[in-house]
């Protein structure tokens, strides 16, 4: 009983260490060394795939989240006759937390899953193997442009998400609930600081982007090359990258705003 427990723990830790090692090695081979000759055009292509194609879901969600936030915030603030602070509440909660986190979760669902499915399919149809046999490194040709595009795309998407959400908050707060337009903007301007609020939010989303794209590429590259394997990997990407992003958000918030 005890020996089987110990061997189980050993097995699990070994698997975990093996996984971490493989993932780090993959990241190393992708990012270091001579880059692919056509890295820039490939990167632009992926920026379109991961960034532009994620825009509809990011912008729509941003709008609705901003509107809901404004509603809920207003009804709490109005009890204290503080509804003029609505702009500050919306902007701070969006820039520091909601923006980076919700955009990251949406990105994991939209772009992360498609990355895993795409790479997994390339693996199962031997496209990756054939690339290797043509003396072309799949790390540099396939993974690197996707990783860099993911890291660039998510912070930009997060900023656009924030802009839409703040506008959505304005629509509800000012146009519907009657908060003064000047107060909405000036209170926001007064309470939001560039470095601690805006830049910290961007920094968060850069870190989320690395996590999500890395997990997505790893799960695709090491997917079991069958239809079932790919679908399992896709699910795993969304679940694991979302959880890691949320856990990392807690750590980052504690570091950035905790002291």
């Amino acid at each position, binding site marked *: 009983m005890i020996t089987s427990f110990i061997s189980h723990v050993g097995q699990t830790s070994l698997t975990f260490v093996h996984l971490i090692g493989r993932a780090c090695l993959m990241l190393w081979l992708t990012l270091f060394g001579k880059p692919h*000759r056509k890295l820039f055009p490939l990167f632009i292509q992926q920026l379109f795939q991961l960034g532009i194609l994620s825009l509809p879901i990011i912008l729509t969600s941003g709008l609705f989240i901003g509107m809901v936030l404004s509603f809920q915030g207003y009804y709490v603030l109005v009890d204290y006759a503080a509804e003029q602070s609505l702009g500050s509440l919306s902007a701070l909660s969006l820039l520091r937390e909601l923006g980076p986190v919700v955009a990251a979760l949406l990105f994991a669902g939209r772009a992360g899953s498609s990355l895993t499915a795409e790479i997994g399919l390339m693996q199962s*149809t031997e*496209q990756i*193997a*054939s690339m*290797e*046999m043509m*003396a*072309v490194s799949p790390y540099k040709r396939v993974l690197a442009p996707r990783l860099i595009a993911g890291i660039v795309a998510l912070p930009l998407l997060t900023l656009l998400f924030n802009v839409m959400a703040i506008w959505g908050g304005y629509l509800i707060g000012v146009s519907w609930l009657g908060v003064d337009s000047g107060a909405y903007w000036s209170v926001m301007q007064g309470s939001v600081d560039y470095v601690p609020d805006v830049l910290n939010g961007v920094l968060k989303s850069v870190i989320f982007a690395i996590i999500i794209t890395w997990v997505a590429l790893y799960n695709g590259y090491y997917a079991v090359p069958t239809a079932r394997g790919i679908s399992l990997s896709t699910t795993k990407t969304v679940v694991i990258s979302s959880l890691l992003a949320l856990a990392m958000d807690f750590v980052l918030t504690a570091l950035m705003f905790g002291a």
Partner: protein
Amino acid sequence: MAQSNHLVIKKLSFSRNERLLFDDLDFEFERGKITAILGPSGIGKTTLLKLIGGQLPVDSGEILFNNQAIHNCSEKVRYQARQKMGMLFQSGALFNDLSVFENVAFPLREHFKLEESLLQTLVLMKLEAVGLRGAKDLKPAELSGGMARRVALARAIALDPELVMYDEPFTGQDPISMNVLLKLVKQLNSTLGITSIIVSHDVNEVLSIADNVYVLAEQSIIASGSVDDIFKQTDNALLQQFLLGKSEGPVPFHFKGASFADDLEQVNR
């Protein structure tokens, strides 16, 4: 002798998932000849090609390509060797998002900076060789299985390799495309002098074009030599069963298990 051998494998051992696939095997592939590797499914024939291409590391043994070790070399040497090798994958492994033309142009674009007109000429020559110049604008999804394999063949020879490896090239082909592929493999070998390694279990088709044969079974080579030699080894029961495709022989029809009577007794107890 060393000069005429293009690829030599010495004392190769390889196991995967704690299952031994190859135990101390030796192969010699003569330059400019077609060598067939035959064996039942699941024996690790495709794995052998991946070992030659350096996609999997060997457990022990040596792989010498043009007298140069390629099993434990640097990444650079391996990539240089791969530029001289072509491989036709069983599924074709064409890039879905690229047209037929771009698929064949892919290795050329990756490795050389060619004038567009020269590149187009080269690609059209390769496509002409496999008879699919007319299909250059199609996407891989629009091709039949046989056509996809011919495009993949054009891509495999795009860099003018010295050695081409064919992974089950005839599996699942209709009689016409099977013959077209056979003719192409033979033609490429005789006109360009490409050393060819064909991994297959389509015995009759492969033996009709091969010069030398290795037959694998149970982690070892059970027969090797020229095609005529192989058929003369009538005392080798396993070989005969495989060549003639008999359902009974050293490889039993029944999967290992308890006897039928015992199983029935269990059920009716």
